[in-house]
């Protein structure tokens, strides 16, 4: 049951990714990416990460993708503007070689890692345990991230203004 679920979700996410980079129309690509993101959320839920699962849906599929789709719709590109130069076969060959090398390297590195059974605490992945860890061990990155987000918000508002 778990194996079947994993393979279904993995296939959906890879298919979503491939469709996204393959589509000419960025809106269709955006929807394929949403499919991929929701499948990834399911995969992290299978890894007992309840809080991150909800965050994936809330932040990625619910906020970032809405933003991207909003922008695509506002830009409202006509069909002629979407034409791109076709990808040459040399580039494809180069990419496939790099991927194969990367996969080989991954197998070499990960093939030896055998972590064995890890005991999980009762509240693993809970909002409480993640929050506790974030506010005690990682409080400095937490504060820095909030500053970064503030800078990003101010930057976006300034960039998108027509008259400063």
């Amino acid at each position, binding site marked *: 049951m778990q194996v079947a679920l994993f393979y279904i979700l993995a296939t959906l996410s890879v298919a979503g990714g491939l469709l996204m980079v393959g589509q000419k129309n960025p809106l269709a690509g955006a929807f394929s990416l949403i499919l991929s993101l929701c499948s990834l959320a399911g995969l992290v839920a299978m890894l007992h990460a309840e809080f991150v699962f909800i965050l994936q849906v809330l932040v990625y599929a619910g*906020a970032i993708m809405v933003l991207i789709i909003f*922008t695509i719709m506002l830009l409202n590109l006509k069909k002629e*503007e*979407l034409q791109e*130069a076709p990808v040459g076969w040399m580039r494809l060959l180069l990419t496939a070689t790099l991927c194969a090398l990367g996969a080989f390297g991954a197998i070499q590195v990960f093939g030896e890692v055998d972590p064995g059974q890890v005991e999980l605490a009762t509240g693993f992945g809970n909002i409480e345990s*993640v929050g506790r860890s974030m506010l005690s061990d990682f409080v400095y990155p937490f504060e820095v*991230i909030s500053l970064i987000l503030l800078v990003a918000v101010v930057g976006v508002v300034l960039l998108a203004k*027509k008259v400063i």
Partner: protein
Amino acid sequence: MIGLHHYLYLSAILFFIGAFGVLFRRNLLVILMSIELMLNAVNLSFIAFSRHATGDVDGHVAAFFVMALAAAEAGIGLAILVMLFRNRTTVQADDLTLMRD
């Protein structure tokens, strides 16, 4: 049974698909979305390690930070894109050659 390896291979595949999109697509929107896919692949890898290798929630916290940064970066990238579109009415990376010529 599904072990650490499965998740790591999936993460690697998704990362390479995203990298392909960034390198070979010319449409700026698709480039931005491919960056998001790469960040997601890394998130999956973090969570998989957290569950199978360490057993504590440091990976979840890291995934949270990656998500927050991805949101900030997507916002700013889109703002730049909108400004670019306003000035040049194009979103193809090939047409932005002002600094090259």
